[in-house]
């Protein structure tokens, strides 16, 4: 059962934080300053940069164990300066299941500043004496572009002070900076810390090796996890694949498809 709560570098120990999409997982889960589809649910400010009606599905197979799989589906609906995002995730199996549904909104506040918030609803179901539990939390983020090729992201997950609760609920702060070094080459670094956990640093790159084909790599200090990923774009469809290592528990693979509808 312990393995259920073992992070695999995507959320620095906060098991309630949504895993990164395949594109971001391939670059060490560096996502707080990215503007991709899945990043928009890691930092809701990024929603503002998604101007297409789009939908996606993502599957993460942690340590190649089907019981530890996470299935995610999301949709982004643009609306002027703002975009709305909806997300659903499912983790676990018949003896333990954790589900999350979120509704987020990202707004472009000025040329170089965007902000976003999301409300999440969690359920955790376990048979027997443990019962079922629910919770509502919020998360919020900012994305700033001080220069055309530099982006800085800040995100806080569950900022409600724990004094207002009966028990501890993990909080996560993330901040990161990314730079477009050259045409097609993006590199980023991110720091993340969750309640009761160590500080984690992540770094990664995304490079368009040939037209429509991207390769990604990254490293995360938690569990010394290395990541590798591939991405391919076919007209309205993005296909991404990633692999993340764990010092002791093996490889976590992840695949996603994103459809740009309008």
């Amino acid at each position, binding site marked *: 059962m312990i393995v259920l*709560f073992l992070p695999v570098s995507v959320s620095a120990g906060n098991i309630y934080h949504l895993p990164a999409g395949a594109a971001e997982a391939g670059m060490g889960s560096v996502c707080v300053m990215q503007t991709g589809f899945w990043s928009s649910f890691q930092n809701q400010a990024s929603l503002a940069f998604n101007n297409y009606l789009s939908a996606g599905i993502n599957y993460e197979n942690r340590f190649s164990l089907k019981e530890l799989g996470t299935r995610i589906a999301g949709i982004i609906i643009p609306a002027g*300066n703002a975009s709305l995002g909806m997300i659903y995730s499912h983790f676990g199996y018949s003896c333990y299941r954790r589900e999350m549904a979120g509704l987020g909104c990202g*707004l472009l*506040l*000025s040329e*170089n*500043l965007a*902000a976003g*918030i999301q*409300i999440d609803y*969690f359920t*955790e179901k*376990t048979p027997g004496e*443990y*019962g079922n*539990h*629910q*919770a*509502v*939390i*919020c998360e*919020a983020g*900012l994305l*700033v572009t*001080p*220069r055309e090729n530099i982006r*800085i992201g*800040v995100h*806080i997950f569950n*900022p*409600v*002070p*724990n*004094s*207002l*609760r*009966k*028990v*501890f*609920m*993990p*909080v*996560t*702060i993330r*901040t990161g*900076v990314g730079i477009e070094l050259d045409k097609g080459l993006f590199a980023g670094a991110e*720091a*993340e*810390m*969750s*309640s*009761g*956990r*160590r*500080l984690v640093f992540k770094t990664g790159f995304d490079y368009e090796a040939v037209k429509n084909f991207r390769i990604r790599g990254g490293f995360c200090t938690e569990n010394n996890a290395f990541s590798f990923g591939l991405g391919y774009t076919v007209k309205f469809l993005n296909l991404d694949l990633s692999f993340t290592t764990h010092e002791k528990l093996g490889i976590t693979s992840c695949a996603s498809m994103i459809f740009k509808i309008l």
Partner: protein
Amino acid sequence: MTIFATFAVKQKPILILFWLIFLSELIIRPAYCQDESLSQIIMTIIEEFAADESDPEATAIFIEQLHELSENPVKINSGDEDEISRLFFLNDFQVKAIADYIKTTGELVSKYEIANIPGFDRQTAELILPFVFIEDNSVISLPSPVWRNTLLTNFIIRPGENDTSYLGSPAKVLSKYRFTAGHFSGGITAEKDQGERLLDGKPPLTDFISGYLSYTGSRFLKRIILGDFGACFGQGININTGIHTGLSLTAPGYMQGRNETKPYTSTDENNYLRGGAAEFTFRDLGISLFFSRSRIDATPGIREDTSDFTVTGFYKTGLHNTSSLLMKKDIVTETSMGANVTYDFGFLRAGVLWSAGSFVPPVSLQSGNPEDLFDFSGKTCNIYSFYYNSQFRKVLSYGEISFNNLRNLAMAQGITAKLSDRLAVNFLYRYYAPGFHTFHGRGPGSGSNTCNEKAMLGNFTFEAAKHLFVSAGAEIRNFPWLRYRISCPSMARKYEIRMKYIPSENLTFDCSFTSRFSMLDSNESQGINGLSGTSDRLFRFSAKYSPGENLVLSSAVNYMISGHDDSRGMLMRQDIVYRLRQAPLTLWIRYCIFNTGSWYTRLYTYENDLLYSYNVPALSGDGCRSYAMVKWEIGDMADLRVKYGITTLAHENDLMENRDEIRVQLIVRF
């Protein structure tokens, strides 16, 4: 399966509402904000200061002086030396350089022009920026004869704390009243610490009360103060009731500021002078005289040899909230007097200073332990000093030599050289003999006691590339005699390297690495204690960005490794400062997560707070620290600040401990 318990979470619609309001404000209102009172450099200095812990009062003094400046920024374009010298961290020559620059080239158009003035670099300019005012201030008007009053009241309470040993209420209350009328000014400061009685004694007064009347002239009589005052002369070895230099290893300079006596408005209950002070100037000659008699806190005792009443230690915290601590209040009558004469030769400014102090009852700090062998014992203490500052081309040299009762020596000698437009270096040597005693002195880099130390400090600041500044410093300290928990002569080292990248005026990255080596008794079970050395290493990174004038975002990461127990400490925080455009409200919000392995890896982080109050909590354990503060500017006549802060600590078995506090401040001007 305690993890399930985490779902016992309450829904918080108020927070959601807050975010929606915040976001809508951002959309509606374009950039507009100036309320960024402390620069990152100053914040770092304060955190270093708090971490050092050798001189806790200095943090309060430093922050108070900064608050005074941020409340009343210096009108730098006036070119008036007295006005510019309110920037207390500048030395005489820097003050003169700014004044000369404005007189010869005209008014500064931008604050950033300061970095181009001889004697300044970008780092010093950054330090000054929050405290100067450029616009519409070219003329310093004559002091207005209109009576102006300011009344400040702070009220601080920690709802969760309830110590039954306290004599009074757990609230901390501070009130300051000041007036100015033409050349005259005056003020009263009253404070009640946590747990002290509000009114006590005969007549019933707050635990600490101080006041002054001051006259500031422009000719022969430059200033006269009656009541409580502070003073600083030379490099501060002999007399310095303010802050000492040498706070940061990568500071742009270590020369002490100007000679001055100034009204005392702080709340340090023991380090001030009470009586009268006068400053006279006649052309290039300056004379200062002061006399003080005050009662200070101490631990009473009886001399074993004569059975006389004596004092065995000074009590400096100012807290009198239990019966035993109240017994230490006002035990000693200290009488101090002194005279300072200085002469300005142009390139050289030199001075001599004499001060004398006497105590009733006599003081005997020697407890019989070897480490106390050189501590003060007796009734009187005379100190004679000679000091100088000189500037020759791009080299600034300064120093002071002092003798205590013509026996024990204390000296400091420093050099600041700007070798090129991109490289500046500093050196400071100091030697404070084990038997040197000063009761109101704070020599450069000395901590709380200016004695038993021989040290060398050096640093450089280099503009390595466009927008990239690298500075590094090293300090080696030798302690010729024993110290607390150190049974042999010992030494300490400190190194620091700092990089600062400022790609644009609204974006700053700052990163530093500090290593400290210190020695302590090794606690051998048999025989004489040996010494063991430990190294602590601290890494800091911060980024600050201001997307618009009304919004400042900053993120910081601290990581510490302690050699004492090989534990790790880490901290990550996010700050937002936002000023609403249509309402006179400013918001400060912080969220900070920390996780430290032990008390040795505790991390200090500066918090924005009430004016004339400060908060640099030592974060230790596993938890979160967050606060929200709002300032409401009620026209020109009043400011109201309310701060709520909470620290949540997680203990074993998911037990939570919450410590919260409420701070309220009202400033009224009439």
